[in-house]
């Protein structure tokens, strides 16, 4: 199993290590609920060094990315970032990604850890015929996510960059705790926060500096409950190779006014199902639980769990389009009432 540059630091801070996407990563340090609430009320720091980073550069970098990604990369100025997707020939989702424009003709693409090899092959295939260079920086990049309402305050004490001038989705270079870093005001929790791209040898010093400044270490468990509460998709759950992104709440990513790989196939399909948010009356929904309406199955839970803010079970589920409630989720054989919820499940920044 691979280790991130923070492996020893995780053990030192009491991290309970689990296998995730081929890496040993902390599930939690103290408690998932405590870490979740620390991020909602203060700040938490996650080790997301397992994620993949591809550098895309060259005179046709933009033209290539316009073809390879579903969002409109031409809208990105230097120093800005956007959420996007890679589609397959059938219009399904190869991955959901984040795209950062670092320089005039240099972009960083951040991909899900489990999809690194697949995305790399996919992009290599699409790059044929474009004057573009792709470089896989995944192994040589450490990535920390500092998230929460106090993230900016904590980080400001460690960097000379004026964070008050940085907006959501800005990306910029700065020193953090004396180490060179690339910072982005992005994240996966629904809170304000920053992601810090670092050289592996600098990761531990910056991690410790963030903790010393008041952030708590947070693990994969809290990362998942936070993203679920925020109504964000998780690849392999809400989004898969068979998913038409136009049938999801994240359809806004897909820009119909430009040409890109997979677009025509996605547009040609009618949505038989759609993704909805559900809040349960009692109990916890888990992935795979059936969603019922009128006494018959109309869908299934793709991500389910506990919302520490609501104190209830919440779920993202694929259901038949237009299915009428009342909905029930079958929890270990018993139907439990579930109400539709707008996303995010809780008010967020």
């Amino acid at each position, binding site marked *: 199993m691979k280790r991130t540059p923070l492996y020893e630091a995780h053990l030192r801070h009491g991290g309970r290590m689990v296998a995730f996407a081929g890496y040993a990563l902390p*599930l*939690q340090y103290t*408690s*998932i*609920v*405590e870490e979740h609430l620390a991020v909602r009320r203060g700040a938490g720091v996650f080790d997301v060094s397992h994620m993949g980073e591809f550098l895309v550069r060259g005179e046709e970098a933009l033209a290539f990315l316009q073809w390879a990604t579903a969002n409109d990369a031409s809208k990105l100025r230097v120093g800005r970032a956007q959420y996007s997707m890679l589609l397959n020939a059938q219009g399904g989702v190869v991955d959901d990604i984040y795209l950062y424009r670092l320089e005039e003709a240099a972009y960083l693409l951040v991909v899900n850890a489990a999809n690194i090899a697949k995305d790399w092959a996919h992009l290599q295939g699409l790059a044929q015929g474009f004057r573009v260079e792709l470089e896989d920086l995944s192994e040589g990049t450490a990535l920390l996510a500092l998230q929460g309402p106090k993230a900016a305050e904590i980080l400001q004490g460690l960097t000379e960059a004026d964070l008050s001038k940085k907006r959501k989705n800005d990306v910029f270079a700065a020193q953090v705790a004396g180490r060179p870093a690339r910072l982005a005001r992005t994240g996966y929790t629904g809170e304000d926060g920053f992601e810090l791209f670092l050289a592996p040898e600098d990761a531990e010093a910056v991690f410790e500096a963030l903790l010393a400044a008041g952030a708590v270490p947070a693990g994969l*468990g809290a990362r998942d*409950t936070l993203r679920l509460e925020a109504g964000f998709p998780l690849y392999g759950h809400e989004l898969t190779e068979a998913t038409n992104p136009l049938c999801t709440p994240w359809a806004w990513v897909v820009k119909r006014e430009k040409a890109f790989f997979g677009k025509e196939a996605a547009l040609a399909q009618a949505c038989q199902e759609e993704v909805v948010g559900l809040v349960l009356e*009692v*109990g*916890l929904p*888990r992935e795979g639980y059936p969603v019922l309406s009128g006494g018959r199955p109309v869908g299934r839970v793709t991500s389910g*769990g*506990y919302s520490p803010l609501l104190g209830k*079970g919440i779920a993202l589920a694929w259901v038949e389009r237009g299915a009428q409630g009342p909905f029930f989720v079958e929890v*270990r054989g018993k139907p439990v009432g579930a109400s539709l919820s707008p996303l995010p499940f809780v008010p967020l920044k």
Partner: protein
Amino acid sequence: MDIPKDRFYTKSHEWALPEGDTVLVGITDYAQDALGDVVYVELPEVGRRVEKGEAVAVVESVKTASDIYAPVAGEVVEVNAALEKSPELINQDPYGEGWIFRLRPVDMGDLDELLDAEGYGEALASEA
């Protein structure tokens, strides 16, 4: 891990504390720690008759759902209603306030088939 000597244990990490002609049942410190934050408990119905090893309750943590098995055969005579509002009692006080249900065993002698504290400690050590 805390393993009180006043009660019996199962290999599936329940404890059983005899009190008069009934037995109080909960999960061990090891089990609550392994589960992490307990956020929901599905309690059995009072009056239900259960066999030894039958799934009687469900403890759900953020991570997973875990069946709780009857350590001996008997009848459920009481449940810990406090867990409906405060499931975290299982994390905070697994051997006390976090008890789950009370059984009236068919035969109190069945408790002798369970592990004592020392035996449970050894079982944990061999599991690790």
